[in-house]
């Protein structure tokens, strides 16, 4: 097991921004189209973080034209070139699957303020 962790540790990103469930993030995704490489952004709410080490993933949910879109990103994938936290959310659970049942105003997440962190 130790050897496996060492192998994984070598391939993990050196620094990953601190973010947690409920945060609104902008993920820069590397897309290769016909030999050309470009960066595509995916912006939404983190509704899940799971796994550990090299296999850790996170799920980002956004609602586009009334349709919910969720993408699961491997945290250490080279295709995830950057993660920017736009807003910290105040949530009371680890998985925000309940957001799938909610639309519009009901699906809002309260912003985490400095005071709430204390």
């Amino acid at each position: 097991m130790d050897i496996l962790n060492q192998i994984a540790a070598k391939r993990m990103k050196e620094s990953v921004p601190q973010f947690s469930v409920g945060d609104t993030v902008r993920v820069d995704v590397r897309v290769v189209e016909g030999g050309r490489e470009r960066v595509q952004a995916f912006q939404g709410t983190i509704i899940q973080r799971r796994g550990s080490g090299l296999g850790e993933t996170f799920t980002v949910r956004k609602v586009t034209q009334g349709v919910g879109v969720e993408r699961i990103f491997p945290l250490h994938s080279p295709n995830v070139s950057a993660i920017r936290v736009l807003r910290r959310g105040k949530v009371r659970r680890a998985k925000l699957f309940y957001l799938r049942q909610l639309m519009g105003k009901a699906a809002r997440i309260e912003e985490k303020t400095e005071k709430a962190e204390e």
Partner: protein
Amino acid sequence: MRGLIGKKIGMTHLFDKDGTQIPVSVIQVGPCPVVQVKSPKKDGYAAIQLGFGVVRPTKVKLARAGHCKKAGLPAYRDLQEFRVENADEFEAGQIIDVTIFKDTAEVDVTGKSKGRGFTGLHKRHNFHGGPASHGSKSHDVAGSIGSSAYPSRVMKGKKMAGRTGYTRFTVKNLKVVEIDLENNLMMVRGAVPGAANTILRITASS
């Protein structure tokens, strides 16, 4: 010489250049010393016997301990023979490591699979089972096991429930993803037989 003894470490995954995840098995390959050289003249065929896994001499049979001692080596838990074209190139005590696979693209890995105990037909022979509904009651039955008056017996080799796994088999043409010469590790794409610490026989694919 195109084979070595190894040990399964486990599985993990790596990211490709384009971000694709590749499942890999990590195998500790060697280093294996030559315990005995078999020559056509003396033994009728050319092969080398390799050792793997050093143990205290008291942990193996006396014959094995003496056999290893004869080559001036410590006692090995596992010994395996590999055919070679020319036995004269090798001598007892010579150490062979994962370097021999440096330019190998694909390998075959042999080992014993995980034992599953007594299992039913679905797991053992991939039977699909009966209908779940529409009044069916034959959800998990074997069905007919043969004809009646002739042959009046069940044919040999009929697929039935029973002990599954813990059999030796070979996974062929596994792509070598990476070789770590320093730590004697090899990563191959896909699964290899057995659980972690299973002893494996790794040969270059022909």
